[in-house]
């Protein structure tokens, strides 16, 4: 779905040479984002991209909007300051699995729970790319890298589960190669009021090639992509022959024929309780099997910025003085003559 606007993708391309490795999934994501921005009829100067450190974090340099390439892990904090300073801006956070989940894990979870108006895109390639191939907090157990020659012994994060655990108001997952789906997720995130978190499976063709083969390979993808769509039964497979049931012991993959379509879970991202969304996020860990993509959770909650401005307005109603002299007077003064 593209609409005519005053912008073209080229309007969001900066004059800087893009320096990711040839074949990197980041190129596709950059193209998806730039095209999406052109599709929006929003002033270019109203967008701010804030990133941390890592391959993904070079992103702001390539987008012709306002941007800051900041410090490893700190982008959610810095972006929070930008968003709170000017609520009219759309503030995008570009981060990766190392930046957002390792060194910056603390800022990420707090940004998510606060519901600051941020659009957080976490490029998950399950490897450290910029430092040339060490295991990351999303690498699978047993992964052999330069710093884990005998295999990683770190239990990995599932980023969607983590985000749901913080009660983030918008949590989604998409895949770099699937541009229409990526765009759909960007559109949903953009329209969401508050923190929107999108995990993007991104292929690092140099240090972790084909990590998402099950979801991107021509042979495998139809059997393994579970598209989550609000109000629809969660079915997948070339002929929708597979489905997901949700019960007290978790979400399970079943043959639709075995249980009947009525037993298949209907996806409802607007459930106030993130519990079912969390169960869905546990269907795969890696991904090593059929994996849900789409919007896991989208609920309404006042944003941090709205509450902050609300308190300021209330304070002004209660005390209309804008005089520091009055403030001192209230503190108590005396006069020497």
């Amino acid at each position, binding site marked *: 779905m593209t609409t005519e606007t005053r912008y073209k993708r080229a309007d969001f391309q*900066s*004059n*800087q040479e893009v320096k990711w490795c040839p074949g990197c999934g980041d190129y596709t994501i950059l193209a998806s984002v730039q095209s999406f921005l052109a599709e929006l009829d929003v*002033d*270019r*100067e*109203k967008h*701010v*991209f*804030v990133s941390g*450190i890592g391959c993904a974090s070079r992103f*702001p*340099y390539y*987008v*012709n*909007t*306002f*941007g*800051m*390439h*900041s*410090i490893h892990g*700190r982008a959610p*904090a*810095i*972006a*929070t*300051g*930008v*968003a*709170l*300073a*000017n609520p009219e*801006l759309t503030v995008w956070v570009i981060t990766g699995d190392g930046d957002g989940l390792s060194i910056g894990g*603390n*800022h990420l979870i*707090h940004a998510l729970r606060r519901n600051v108006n941020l659009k957080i895109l976490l490029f998950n390639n399950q490897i450290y790319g910029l430092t040339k191939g060490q295991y990351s907090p999303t690498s699978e157990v047993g992964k052999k890298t330069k710093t884990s020659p005998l295999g990683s012994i770190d239990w990995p994060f599932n980023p969607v589960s983590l985000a749901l655990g913080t009660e983030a108001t918008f949590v989604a997952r998409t895949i770099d190669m699937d541009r229409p789906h990526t765009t759909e997720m960007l559109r949903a995130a953009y329209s969401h009021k508050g923190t929107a978190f999108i995990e993007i499976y991104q292929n690092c063709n140099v240090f972790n090639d084909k990590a998402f083969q099950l979801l991107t390979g021509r042979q495998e993808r139809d059997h393994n992509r579970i598209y989550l769509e609000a109000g629809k039964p969660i079915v997948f497979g070339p002929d929708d022959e597979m489905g997901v049931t949700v019960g007290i012991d978790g979400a399970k993959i079943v043959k639709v024929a075995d249980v009947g379509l009525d037993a298949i879970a209907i996806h409802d991202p607007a459930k106030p309780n993130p519990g079912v969304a969390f169960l869905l996020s546990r269907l795969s860990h890696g991904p090593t099997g059929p994996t849900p993509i789409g919007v896991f959770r989208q609920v309404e909650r006042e944003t941090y910025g709205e509450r*902050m401005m609300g*308190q*300021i307005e*209330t*304070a*002004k109603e*209660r*005390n*209309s*003085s*804008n*005089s*520091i*002299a009055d*403030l*001192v007077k209230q*503190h*108590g*003064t*005396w*006069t*020497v*003559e």
Partner: protein
Amino acid sequence: MQEETLSPPKPPEQRDRVVIRFAGDSGDGMQLAGTRFTETSAAFGNDLATFPSFPAEIRAPQGTLAGVSSFQVHIADWDILTHGDEADVLVAMNPAALKANLRDVVPGGLILANEDAFDDRNLEKAGYESNPLTDNSLRGYHVMTAPMEKLTKLAVADTGVKGRSVLRSKNFFALGLISWMFNRPTESILEWVDQKFGADNPVGRANIEAFRAGFNFGNTTEEFHHTYEIAPAKLPEGTYTNITGNQALAWGLLAAAKAAGLTLFLGSYPITPATSILEEVSRLKHFGVKTFQAEDEIAGVGVSLGAAFAGHLAVTTTSGPGVALKSETLSLALATELPLILVDVQRAGPSTGLPTKVEQSDLMMALFGRHGEAPLPVIAASSPSDAFEVAMEAARLALKYMTPVILLSDGYLANGAEPWRVPDLDAIPKWDIAHTTEPNGPDGEFFPYLRDEETGARPWAIPGTPGLEHRVGGLEKAALTGNVSYDPDNHEMMTEARAAKIAGIANDIPEVEVHGSKDADVLVVSWGSTFGGVRAGVNNANNTGYSAAHVHVRYLNPLPRNLGDILRRYDKILVPELNRGQLAYVLRAEYLVPAITLSKVQGAPFMSAEITKKIIELAEDKS
């Protein structure tokens, strides 16, 4: 007050000054008693200076030395510089308070003890083998005792407070007794209790009854035959308020934001002794200020940097351990050349150190504690009220030069109070600060790193400004465009440009002034909160026939342009610091002068006598 029970007043003895220290358990309410005494003295018109001192634990074990909390206040009828080297009066609420504070009481001073607390158990906890109130070991002092707990219990019997709450009011008994002894007006204290607790609140009534009981006890007891009067000080005309350093800082930041026409943004994480700045600014929301209590120190400075990028006057407040965590973001602020104020309310370190005690040991970290070549302006407050001006000055430099600035305060200034002659706060002139709104290059191009010829500052073009879209970041930037550049010559040029910008601030700050003679035997150089004690010490030396001069340095980087010439005029340069000699190290390196360190790291400010003694020692050493 039950006037009919009062005996005819005896004429009070006039004193020009007195130093009173309230000391007790950290749960005894000594800070409150001291603060109320201070406020009523301020309203009465005395000059004053205070020194609160308390343990890091909220409630350390009762009755122990570790749990002693004290509040010293110096009141005078003249313009004083310090909280007083030694206490003339010590109010000791228990044996531990006596033991911990006795060494700071002037010989012959008055000790007013709560005799009820001097039982075997408390004596043992404080490490006394016998009762000092009765074993004659205090013969060098004037000792007076009162059964404060017994009388407080009787006084509050009808107020409705019960159980353990009954004795909570004993600080008000002590306050009442001291207020009687020093002829303090009582109305403001009683009014404060009413306002704080509400007129009908049992706790408020108990405090008032205990206060009256203490006041009347002084008046009716033979032992307390004597009262003192300290007349109002002859301070310059004007309106005064009593202010702590942290409060002054908060107000100064607000005043700076108003002068600059910007929104004040404070992103912080609670840390002793800086927390009360965040608390104070948080209650100023009606001025439109934004405060953000972050998840950690790093996020505190991070949100502030983001707010600075988006155009606010951004500040983060912390103490030493927090500065260490914020250091990486300071370097980013420096590389992106965005205005940001970091307030370091120093405390004794390293690590958690003595978190409630004063030290000046973060100077080196402020000057040099960043990765890469990362110079930035560093300025320090010299007194609680000076913190107001220094906060404004930090903001002025940050905004004018597009740079992070470190403002150094410390635990002594943070909590210490003094009267502040309030300037006309609604007449502070507006600063010429504006976000860039127009392209600055030919053909409508925008160069985010095109420097102002005079200041070296780059333009401040904030997100939301059409046509000025640009990217900043931690990677080295090409001059003018700000695009990423790995060019070696560009890196050297940018490093020099950043350094030159900060060094150039020397032409925009006042020269230092010498207090005292050009030919003095000793020049004393100080910075930060030691100003009062050092100035008093220098004056004492001059008054006793020695010759000393004093220079106090507010700007630690860049240093004032005339400082080198002044230092070279003197044979002996003494640098007293509450650290191991950090400014002295800088002066020796910068000016090749033989600066001598007087170091103190006891978690307490200098006494003026310590300064005088060292001056005399140097003056008499003719080698």
